[in-house]
């Protein structure tokens, strides 16, 4: 299971030495890498991303009201909201994304995502794993794969969901066939509350670390005896219990969850809504070495009243506080904050949901499920930013060029994270399964 490539910076030591030698021959690093990419059967990409923040827009965000508006289309396609220019000439975004628009040179948009699965559970499984769901196997979501391969021991869980992992109808554990310990840890609670804290990190009255330690040893002893009361070699301590103990024992690790340590100015920049505060929490976690954080923002299943749900937030709002303005604050603050802390290059940010929405408004002023074309946004961690990849047709109905499947996206994300998409895992019954599907193609133009 060891993968030599799983170095955070993506270079093997001998590669660095070789690169060092090359410069003397007049070849720059870029040249060397380009050469590598063209010549090697298994390209060794420069891996910049040490960690990933996935902003999951649960329910299926409207591509037409976010990253792929159609200002010239008929009214029933165009929808109720306007558009604005961006940092990239000729590219327009929804009017509720001004801060993101100004940052578009640090962001890449894929506008030609396509999937056949228009049901929440199925679509979510496809987008989060790269595999279409099948009755024979549940595949692991990105965070579990990253967690499984993470080699730097941290007290904090390596796969964290804020505030939780209730995605796509909540049927997914996120771990798939990988060990249960790779499943995302849901921090719970409401990060928008001033007194937000993660439940059960502090001692119950009358308890201390000595007693918790003894308790965990007793469980390990009990688990080591099998059901007939005889000691068995197979008895292993419960990994979740061990992780829980280590986390409780580490004051330093627990500080990661203390949003109250952030200056109120920073908290405001991210926006008051859950998505903003969750993104801020994600940054704190990534800063402390957590390799994968899912920010789960719910409510994007907008079958009715786009104006209120996406822009206004409530009827008669003067300043929009709906889903899209909240996303705008959160995403732009996150990208800027990561940049200010010199973390953007090593943090991959991905924004997506399970599908897009129907090109034509329905009778309730909403849009229904539409997987045939939708958009995904990426930034940081080795992404060739400032570009739009692919496009949809004039009404946002089908991909016009460069269709990208969720499988392709998976291969690309894994590559950016330094994980070979062709790498194989074994399921419990010994079946080899690739990290990304066999037919997946890496979107090389997305990689800087």
């Amino acid at each position, binding site marked *: 299971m060891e993968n030599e490539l799983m170095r955070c910076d993506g270079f093997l030591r001998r590669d660095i030495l070789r690169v060092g030698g090359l410069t003397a021959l007049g070849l720059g690093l870029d040249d060397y890498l380009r050469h590598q990419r063209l010549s090697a059967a298994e390209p060794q990409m420069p891996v910049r991303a040490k960690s990933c923040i996935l902003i999951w827009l649960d329910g299926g965000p409207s591509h037409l009201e976010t990253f792929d508006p159609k200002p010239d289309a008929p009214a029933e396609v165009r929808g109720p909201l306007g558009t604005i220019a961006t940092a990239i000439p000729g590219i327009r975004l929804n009017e509720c994304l001004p801060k993101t628009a100004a940052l578009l040179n640090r962001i890449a948009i894929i506008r030609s995502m396509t999937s056949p699965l228009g049901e929440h559970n199925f679509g979510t499984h496809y987008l989060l794993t790269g595999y279409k769901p099948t009755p024979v196997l549940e595949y692991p979501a990105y965070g579990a794969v990253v967690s499984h391969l993470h080699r730097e021991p941290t007290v904090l869980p390596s796969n964290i969901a804020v505030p939780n992992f209730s995605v796509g109808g909540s049927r997914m554990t996120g771990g798939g066939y990988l060990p249960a310990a790779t499943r995302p840890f849901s921090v719970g609670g409401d990060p928008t509350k001033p007194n937000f804290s993660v439940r059960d990190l502090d001692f119950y009255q009358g*308890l201390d670390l000595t007693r918790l330690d*003894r308790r965990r040893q*007793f469980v390990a002893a009990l688990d080591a005896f099998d059901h007939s*009361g005889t000691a068995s070699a197979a008895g292993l301590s419960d990994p979740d219990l061990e992780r829980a103990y280590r986390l409780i024992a580490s004051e330093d690790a627990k500080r990661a969850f203390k949003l109250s340590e952030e200056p109120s100015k920073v908290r405001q920049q991210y926006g008051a809504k859950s998505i903003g505060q969750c993104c801020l929490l994600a940054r704190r976690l990534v800063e402390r070495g957590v390799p994968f954080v899912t920010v789960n923002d719910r409510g994007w299943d907008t079958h009715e009243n786009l104006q209120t749900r996406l822009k206004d937030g409530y009827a008669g709002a003067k300043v929009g506080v709906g889903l899209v303005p909240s996303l705008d604050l959160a995403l732009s603050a996150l990208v800027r904050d990561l940049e200010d802390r010199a973390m953007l290059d090593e943090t991959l940010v991905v924004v997506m949901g399970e599908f897009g929405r129907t090109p034509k408004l329905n009778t309730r002023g909403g849009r229904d499920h539409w997987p045939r074309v939708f958009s995904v946004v990426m930034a940081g961690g080795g992404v060739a930013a400032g570009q739009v990849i692919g496009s949809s047709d004039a009404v946002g109905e089908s991909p016009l060029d460069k269709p990208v499947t969720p499988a392709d996206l998976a291969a690309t994300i894994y590559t950016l994270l330094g994980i070979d998409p062709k790498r194989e895992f074994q399921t419990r019954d010994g079946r080899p399964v690739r990290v990304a599907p066999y037919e997946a193609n890496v979107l090389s133009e997305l990689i800087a």
Partner: protein
Amino acid sequence: MPIWWIFFAVVIPVGSDSRIDFDHDVIPVLTKAGCNTGACHGAAIGRGGFKLSLYGGDPAADYRAIALELKGRRVNLIDPDQSLLLMKPTEATEHGGGYRLDPDSSAVARVTDWIRHGAHRGDRAAKRRFVRLEVSPQSAVIRGSGGHLTLKAVAHFSDGLSRDVTGETVFKAEDPAALEVDSETAKTRVLRGGRHIIIARYLSQVMPIEIIQPYSDRTSGVTRGGGQTQFVDRSVDTLLATLGIPASGAADDASFSRRVSLDLTGRLPEPGSVRSFLGDRDPERRVKLIDRLLASEAFNEYWTLQLAKLLRIHAQPGNLLGVEKYHAWLKQQISEKVGYDVVARSVLTAQGDTHQIGPANFFRTVSGPREQAEFTSELFMGSRLRCANCHNHPLDQWTQDDYHGLAAIFARVQQGQVVAVASGGQVIHPRTGENAVPRIPGEHFLEDSDDPREALADWLISSDNPYFARAMVNRLWKAMMGRGLVEPADDLRATNPATHPKLLKTLAEDFVGHQFDLRHTLRLIASSDAYSRSSRTVSGNEIDDRYYSHRMSQSLEPEVLADAISDVLEVSERYGDTALGTRAVTLVDPGIESQTLDVLGRCSRQDTCETPVLVQDNGGLSRKLHLFNGPLLNQRIASNRGRLSRLLESGATVEVVVDEFYLAALGRPVSDGEKRFWNERLKSFADPTEKREQLEDFVWGLLTCKEFVTNH
């Protein structure tokens, strides 16, 4: 299926002549090439302006789309090769769906011929009806690696014609990593051991094919014993033998008593009963225990909970009264041993004030006739009709007529506090735009009647109904064995076959033959050898998760675990504002305030509570943090009442405390090895506080260890 049919039927190849008809010769080509799948032109609004019915479910509409729309372009009668129908999939012209058909293939030749002969629908289409598909083999065992076989499909038509349609049948392996099927020749190669399923699709019909490659040459014996449970064990053992999976031995008495107690009553056996059971030398002691449990009040309480979860009984805001009536009624049905058929009929035909008439609340579980149709079909038929809302079900026999027809049966039901059948109320069939006609799914349309629910209920509970009994025995089996013969348990269909099809059928017949008596089927399963196997694996059956070679350990349900913790500690938990001492399994409202049940992961019953076996969740890190630092265990372990305090006050030694807690929590005496271990670790302390703390930590460990939190 009568074998003689094949010998007498004339099997002819497809000719290159005017006998090509659209419905039976052209549509299969489109299906095979994937043109009419949901991802392509079979989507609800078509693709690229060209819409086909999903998998050719509506030939008339497909004919219109191909031959009549865009006249002269999709089919070019003068120059067939210039037809878009051919140029697109062969990529003679640009095609969004890419290259689908080889221009030199027989399929293209046939479609070309069909166009050349006028692109008629064929008047025979009306006369000749596709009757059924026959695949061979339906089931095969292939030994040795690299083994292969060739599949064959024959279509039978109403005019007596039978034809080899292997080339036009789509064969799809459920697990492409296990089987490789050549789409041209239907030659199938097995890539790995196990039991694999291929779905064959021709026109409107889908059929499963089972291919088994044994894991090993080892065979364990097939039960030869007689008695009532023989058909259960014969079926389970035969498949194990075929697969070459050895079976584990029988569980010991202590494990069996804990297991059967939890399965039938949702309770741990009391220390007193464990002691007397372990001392009992009566060879019939297990059967007697089963009967005693089935006759207990705890059985009534626990199985009321099981059915309440199935019926998704939950309170609407402000309607706790109705739910209390509903729950009390259900409990009465279970206690009075009312047959499951009568229970089903009662809820399906109930009406009246939901605050008075318990079963009428069935119609307040979901709102709207379509939702009622989906809920009812999942509950009583184990079928997911919901796909058939927008198009015919791609993997099952259900059509939009079935879906909207079933919804129409409920269309007149008023789902307010008073449930009544109104004179009006319709659902619109989305394809016709007209009122859907009430219909028994898969069967027939209904005549006008005052209450079409009566006809539905009569049909469902009739002894020859193919769904009702199967759906229930599959769930009973799952409750006892840890996995349904069909998984997911609410997705019974031809293309999702049972691991043991004959066993499912026989169990269902036996259930019907015993007046749909839950206790009868539960007793039968509990008495089988398959049920009593040890959960300890033997070499060669470690990876088995569906053939019952060993007992599958299951996490305790949230309600059961909560009660078990209370019972071991002898300190009750309070749920909402119910009386202290109320057991979690008897709670009426699944939304009642309880952090304990939330942490343990209860089901809200807003939607189905049936979770796929794959997704067993032990709560992960969050639950473990809560066990360490939350009140769930800590508050009550520290209580000055309860078992620990009682024992300490009576001056019990550490040894006695350990022994008592083992019996209460694990249902077995402490072993010598464990006794030594705990004597060593829990040295007697002079300081009573320290002694108490040590023992509290021991109890905490016991309530957290795997052996306690699972039924094994």
